[in-house]
């Protein structure tokens, strides 16, 4: 919070100064009103001076009106500034994350980045709204109230020495007990949610194993636990609030008694007693407000901290100062003795990888999970940077290219096909904004998506939900492939992009692609042998190293790992 706010509040400092002074004026005005009230009693009521009452009353009303105007102007600029700061933080975060490479995204994880960009910002924003009003108001009112009370009568102010510490003590005691309870309340709520989420996700399995009763017990435990904690929190507050009111009320009684004594001894007037009462109440309420702020602030501070962490990341990948350009791109991809390891990792994910993928050829990459297939293809668009060696496109190290120039050459279909909310057409135009309808249909036909898109309500204009949630996995993959096809890239990267297709569709799709990609470099990561058998070149990965490179026939003869992979999917007789 201390680091985050100055940066973002800075541009608004004059506005903030204005808001603060307006709030200060309000506080002072509110402090002034009771003393006017005292005057009305002392000089008007007691002396029976109706004119004085009317004059002072009109003045009071004027003060109130000024306060109201101040307050509205203050709220206007306060809300404007707080919301603007929220907007700025959100925007800065968003831009920052957009610049991130895979490596930095992995550090936080996508869900966490989303929360930081949304909820955390809202949290900070809400505290700002309150801060602009109460955080400034409360201390002024508290201190001002004490000062004014002392001005009304010094000896009577001695009561404050008893009252204020009592209130603070009660609040701190409650806060001390409540804060840990709040935390455990959160984790217990999460627990109930988690059990329920699991149950909803696994309903089939739970019933298949006849485990309904056990699940009910599990939920009941979490439920009881949550209920008990919630009850304790609520009981705590149920005790505190009436108690605080009692303290205030009993303070009033004490003030009237001791005030009476003071008046009797001629040390003070009765109007001052009324004013004194009001000041004490102001002080007590301000203390209460301040306490509530103290409960809010830690939560916002945690949010601010999480935001700051993202903003502070230094991007590992930047464009070169003097970028090279590829004059006539062909799409040759070369891995030259590439090694890659995650920061701080002991073992390299990839080690001494060298091969070249040429235009017009299909290069397939196979290997078991964890052998580094996806990592390998992620090095081509520089989602990660190699830790030694180099990845070259048309002879140029990718690190010497502007990232945008590099990306323009690549059509990628990631493992998890991701679609954007919009229509089929807008999703395809993501690949090429200028594509006309004919081009879109052509791409859809190649990716074997033409049939189902035609069947969808609205055809090309059919709605796609965020992430592509309303189409099946196979359809999602085919649309993602079409999006890459329409871009007409020099380099195609398919990262296990056919996995959700049945064999027949898979085969038809690869045949159609073959014609389309005659001039492009195609790199396919696949786990299905059928998908890759026809590739011009197969790279077999094992534990991050190349176990063999060659055609299907060559590798069947020479590469033991490859043979194992093939035989795991096809029986001996099918291969033979």
């Amino acid at each position, binding site marked *: 919070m201390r680091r985050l706010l100055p940066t973002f509040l800075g541009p608004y400092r004059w506005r903030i100064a204005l808001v603060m002074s307006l709030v200060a004026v309000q506080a002072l005005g509110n402090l002034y*009103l009771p003393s006017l*009230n005292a005057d009305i009693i002392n000089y008007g*009521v*007691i*002396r029976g*001076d109706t004119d004085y*009452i*009317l004059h002072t*009353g009109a003045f009071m*009303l004027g003060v*109130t*009106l000024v306060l109201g105007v101040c307050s*509205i102007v203050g*709220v206007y600029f306060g809300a*404007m500034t707080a*919301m603007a700061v929220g907007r700025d933080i959100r925007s800065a975060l968003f831009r920052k*994350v*957009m610049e991130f490479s*895979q490596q930095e995204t992995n550090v936080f994880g996508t869900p966490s980045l989303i929360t930081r960009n949304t909820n955390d910002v809202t949290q900070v*924003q809400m505290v700002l709204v*309150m801060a602009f*009003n109460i955080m400034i108001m409360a201390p002024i009112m508290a201190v001002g109230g004490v000062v004014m009370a002392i001005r009304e009568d010094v000896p009577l102010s001695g009561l404050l020495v008893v009252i204020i510490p009592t209130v603070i003590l009660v609040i701190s005691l409650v806060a001390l007990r409540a804060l840990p*309870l709040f935390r455990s309340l959160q984790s217990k709520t999460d627990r109930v949610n988690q059990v329920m989420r*699991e149950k909803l996700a696994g309903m*089939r399995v739970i019933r298949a*194993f*006849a485990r309904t009763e056990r699940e009910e017990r599990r*939920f009941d435990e979490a*439920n*009881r636990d949550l*209920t008990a904690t919630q009850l304790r929190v*609520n009981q705590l507050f149920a*005790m505190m*609030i*009436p108690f605080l009111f*009692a303290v*205030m009320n009993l303070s009033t*009684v004490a003030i*009237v008694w001791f005030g009476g004594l003071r*008046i009797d001894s001629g040390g003070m007037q009765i109007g001052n007693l*009324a004013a004194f009462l*009001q000041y004490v*109440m102001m002080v007590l*309420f*301000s203390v209460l407000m301040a306490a*509530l702020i103290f*409960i*809010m602030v830690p939560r916002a501070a945690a949010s601010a901290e999480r935001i700051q962490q993202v903003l502070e990341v230094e991007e590992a990948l930047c464009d070169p100062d003097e970028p090279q350009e590829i004059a006539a791109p062909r799409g040759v991809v070369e891995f030259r003795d590439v090694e890659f390891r995650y920061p701080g990792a002991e073992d390299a994910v990839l080690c001494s990888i060298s091969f070249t993928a040429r235009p017009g050829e299909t290069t397939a990459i196979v290997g078991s*999970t964890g052998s580094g297939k996806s990592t390998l293809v992620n090095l081509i*668009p520089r989602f990660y940077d190699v830790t030694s060696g180099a990845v070259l496109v048309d002879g140029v190290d990718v690190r010497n290219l502007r990232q945008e120039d590099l*990306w323009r050459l690549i059509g990628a279909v990631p493992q998890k096909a991701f679609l954007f909310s919009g229509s089929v057409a807008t999703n395809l135009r*993501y690949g090429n904004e200028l594509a006309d309808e004919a081009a879109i249909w052509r791409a859809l036909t190649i990716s074997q998506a033409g049939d189902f898109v035609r069947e969808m309500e609205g055809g090309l204009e059919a709605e796609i939900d965020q992430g592509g949630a309303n189409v099946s996995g196979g359809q999602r993959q085919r649309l993602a492939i079409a999006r890459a096809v329409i*871009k007409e890239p020099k380099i195609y990267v398919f990262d296990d992009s056919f996995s959700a297709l049945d064999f027949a569709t898979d*085969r038809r799709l690869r045949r159609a692609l073959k014609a389309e990609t005659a001039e492009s470099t195609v790199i396919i990561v696949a786990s*299905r*042998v059928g998908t890759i*058998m026809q590739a011009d070149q197969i790279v077999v990965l094992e534990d991050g190293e190349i176990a063999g490179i060659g055609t299907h026939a060559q590798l069947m003869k020479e590469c033991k790992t490859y043979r*194992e992979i093939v035989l795991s999917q*096809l029986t001996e007789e099918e291969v*033979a």
Partner: protein
Amino acid sequence: MSGPMRGQGGQAGQGGLGGPRRRRGPGFGPPGHMAMMPTEKARNFRKTVRRFIGALAPEKYRILLVLVVAFMSTAGQVFGPKILGQGIDKVMDGIVGKNVGQYFPPGTTHEQAVELLHQMNSPLADVFASTNAIPGVGIDFGALASILLLLIGLYVAATIFSWIAWLTMAGVAQRTVYRMRRDVDEKLARLPLKYFDTHPRGDTLSRVTNDIDNIANTLQQSLTQILTALATIIGVLVMMIWISPILAAISLLVLPTAAISTMLIARRSQKQFASMWERTGVLNGQVEESHTGHSIVKIFGHQEDTIRRFDEENESLYDASFRAQFISGIVMPTMSFIGNLSYVVIAVLGGTMVATGSMSLGDVQAFIQYSRSFTMPITQVASITNILQSTIASAERVFDLLDEPEEIADPTQPVVLESVSGHVTLEKLSFRYEPDKPLIEDLNADVRSGEVLAIVGPTGAGKTTLVNLLMRFYELDKGSICLDGTDTRLMRRDDLRRTFGMVLQDTWLFGGTIRDNIAYGCDDPTEEEILAAAQAAHVDHFVRTLPDGYDTIIDDDASNLSQGEKQLLTIARAFLADPQILILDEATSSVDTRTEVLVQKAMARLMKGRTAFVIAHRLSTIRNADEILVMDHGQIVEQGTHKKLLAKRGFYYDLYNSQFEEAVAEAG
């Protein structure tokens, strides 16, 4: 008597009750923030309210107690100021008495002094008349003490009553909410699977969490608040009229203005907040999409465009939230202006009345206090409509869930099969998910103990339907499924399901240790049994490579395991459960080849000696199956053995060729 911050302070204090809040937005806000979340309206308000009251029935005596005690707890607020006013009068008497004392000989009575002052035409005459002062006599501390003692007694009693009310209500609220959550959970167990297949999970989840939380908050805070607010309003009103009908009439002119203007502003800000939340939703959606599709955005060169769209949305969120905050922020200044207005009017009029002797100072003081303590309950009552509406809407959503049609109950006298051989007969099976879309019509199959039935077909052909029927996740429309000759509908569902073991593609693991996950299908297995199952499923070695072995905790979404490893764990689970009949889903699309070998071996071993229904993708499985059901577009199109179906040269023949011929040919 409390400063202009009273409304604000009290509100915020009570907003803080009950800890973190959901639906109504961040907790500790000024009144305008109370109803920040969009309020939905219940479809049938009255009916839901009646039912909601019904849900409170088990607590009726406690609620009655709260009702009584909450009313009594307002005594402090209702009678306090009047009594305090009397105290102040005693002080006033003393002051005036002393003041006037210098003009009169000791022993002059009040009446005599009034008479004399009038004769002297003193401006003090009227003020003096309004008191009970006796010339020369100072403050009567004895009388003051007894008044203040009474007041202390009143406040202490009120506090005790408040404690009783709040504490009782805390219990009532939490127990009610506990029961609701439990009811919903138990209801979920009785709902047919169809419900879960057709309702988004997030929606059901939010009924259990957000909606019930919302109800809890209302029960905990708003109900007590409203009770006390109403009692206070009535009590204070009576006291005000009693003290001074004229001033009360003036207050009654001012206060409704306050109430109405608050409500008007609240309604406008409600609209603004609704638009703010809508914009927040849109923006959050955009952030989510952009971050999730991050690499796609970049590689397709859409960064600029994405940022531009984000900026637009961000700007319109800024506009909406600024407007919402501003309008809601006006509530407080307006309230305090109106409060001050009524204060000044009362002070002026009251002061005049004291000066003219028609009212005592203590009464004016009391009256000012009353009119102050009026604003808070009025704001509370003004905001209650929104709160009640959203609560009842929440309650309705919960009740809707509780009203969903349930599964047909298990038979009262179920058939219990002693030992199951695994002979499954499907007779004239008919089933449709939707009444007008025929799916399975007149299906017959006889799968004897130890045989394998394979279900094949292209993606999306509806191969899991049969699984749904076998496990009685869905009910048949016509025909019957018999297990060892017994209609499965005569059995308890749990008994039936225990005879089946299921390994599906979408593996389900729960947050817990690997050991607990394997042991899921079995009551209290021994360590040896778990290890044996893990070994049989070829997962033992892999588990041992994990840092905590069998005690390794699997996350919420089991992201620390690969798909293949998860599948092996579910196979181990099936081994341990040792069922007579198996349902397997072979597809292993995202499993890598090495693990796939293991999965395949494990499945083969698991199938040995058991009846199996297999959603088959592998040629070997299909060829060796005793019976094959060929499905397309959700219907069974062909049925028979591999040889018979090939000979038929129909759909299966084509499917088989397209899927496997290539693989076979190319592999050669």
